[in-house]
């Protein structure tokens, strides 16, 4: 490795910096530095080196605060902010070619780290909350989701007309889940927790009980907060999950089962304006979709 690489490790990793101070020969060996390069590293002012390392860590924390603000608030409430420091001390983001922003990746890395720290109920809530925020962040930064949401916006009038025209054929449509939608299952009621924290209210994390929780995140560029989370019932969640590939509403209703058929139809109708499903074709059947993707035009928004 080069001298520059060694310097980067010294800045990113506290242990390497400590080794440079206590066991410099080990650093020299590990990075394959010659004597001149080693004396360069050793000549660096330790205080300024530590300061620069702290600035790098501070930037990392800023990126996590930007992407996972509610999780950070919850960490404070639970008096577990030290997890942030432990995280930035124990890891660093690797270079990814073409990357233009480190923030989303830092948020992913930190969320993964929280998953590894799950040892009690509070830590499980925290890692669920981070998953919740991450789903929103990913969707907000997804070009594919934006393009889909944009098309829906552009075709809004046409869509409304089609919805009205086909409302009675709700069990015979070909649909697909829009790319502007993400479905997530949580083990805790993190949506309530998220909303409480967003309102700036104090709360105990343990108040948010362990319960299977389904959320549909929808990107809507007309909203100020472009990602809207919807609480979703288990049956509807399963129905929507089935539509990640194009399918018929008849198949969706079959998932709900005969006992829930009317509920499922109501759920489909009830959410006509939430832009979750994209209409593909009327009179659905295995061949109705056709072979090309060109028909995946979001001409009709359906329901949840």
């Amino acid at each position: 490795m080069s001298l520059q690489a060694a310097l980067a490790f010294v800045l990113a990793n506290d242990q390497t910096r400590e080794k440079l101070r206590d066991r410099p020969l080990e650093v020299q060996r590990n990075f394959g530095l010659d004597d001149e390069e080693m004396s360069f590293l050793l000549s660096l002012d330790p205080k300024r080196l530590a300061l620069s390392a702290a600035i790098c860590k501070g930037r990392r924390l800023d990126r996590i605060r930007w992407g996972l603000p509610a999780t950070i608030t919850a960490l404070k409430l639970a008096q577990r902010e030290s997890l942030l420091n432990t995280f930035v001390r124990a890891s660093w983001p690797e270079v990814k070619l073409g990357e233009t922003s480190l923030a989303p990746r830092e948020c992913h890395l930190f969320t993964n780290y929280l998953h590894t720290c799950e040892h009690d109920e509070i830590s499980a809530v925290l890692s669920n909350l981070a998953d919740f925020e991450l789903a929103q962040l990913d969707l907000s930064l997804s070009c594919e989701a934006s393009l889909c949401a944009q098309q829906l916006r552009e075709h809004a009038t046409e869509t409304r007309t089609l919805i009205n025209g086909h409302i009675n054929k709700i069990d015979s449509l070909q649909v697909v889940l829009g790319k502007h939608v993400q479905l997530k299952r949580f083990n805790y009621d993190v949506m309530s927790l998220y909303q409480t924290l967003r309102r700036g209210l104090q709360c105990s994390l343990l108040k948010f009980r362990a319960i299977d929780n389904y959320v549909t995140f929808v990107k809507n560029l007309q909203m100020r907060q472009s990602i809207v989370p919807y609480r979703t019932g288990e049956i509807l969640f399963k129905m929507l999950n089935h539509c990640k590939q194009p399918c018929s509403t008849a198949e969706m209703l079959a998932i709900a089962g005969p006992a829930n058929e009317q509920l499922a139809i109501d759920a489909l109708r009830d959410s006509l304006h939430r832009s979750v499903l994209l209409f593909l074709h009327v009179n659905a059947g295995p061949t109705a979709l056709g072979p090309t993707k060109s028909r995946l035009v979001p001409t009709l928004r359906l329901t949840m």
Partner: protein
Amino acid sequence: MVTDMVGSSTNSNRGLASLPFLGVGLAFRQALEQQIWANQASVGWLEVTAEHYMSGLPECMEALRKLLRAFPVIPHGIELSIGSDGDLDCAYVTSLAKLIEEINAPWFSDHLCFTKAGGIALGQLMPLPRTRECAMTVARKAQSLQGEVGIPFLLENIAYYLDLPSELSEAQFISEVMEHCECGLLLDLTNVFINSLNHRFDTLVFVDSIPLERVVQIHLAGGEPSQAVFMDSHSAPVHEEVFGLLRYVSDRTPNLKGISIERDGNFPASFCELECDLEAAQKISAVLYG
């Protein structure tokens, strides 16, 4: 493609001289958006962070196009890492070139530093070892990038807290880079001021030692003292000493085309504070550019 590395001051100066004069502008930040729209007449142009738009996210591009309809816009990057060992990141350069084409910008800029090394993304501007070899390498990459993108590329002097023992002073290093490429300089006067405090040098000696005829753009901002050093926090009004430096360099920078004020934190509730900075910079530059 690497273009010829001639380091001809005459060639580069001729190219820089023909760039449009933009006057005094602001670094665009989301937190300032409303104030900028409400005070459009006070803002001559906007500098946008290139990486915020390089992913091509449709809503971001729509917002950028809205800015473009109202202001001249210059892209300013933070993640090029021109000083990293090895070649430039081709995928990054392709996205950057695409953005610059969309903006139709007269020039673009990034920092004379490294932000990535040894596979680690530091996410922070770090100083380079100031050697002739390093200067040549950076100059070659800068020239290549400028050739690929097709418009002048400016390198910005950074604020640094860790001084690397080097054969050249910072001013000599900058001069050496400029000597070996035809790129321009984005002179951050606040960084000069802050570095002079943290590393104890004379700001006037510094600016007199760099090729001021290559300066196309100037950055102004306000920093803050912390425990051990003065921080380049962009969280305060521009320091009087920095305006003093602007006065000093203004009539020594024949190719100066734009001055921009950066604010990244402690955003003022009203535009008055930024307007004072804008007006002060305008007054100083108006003496020279009318």
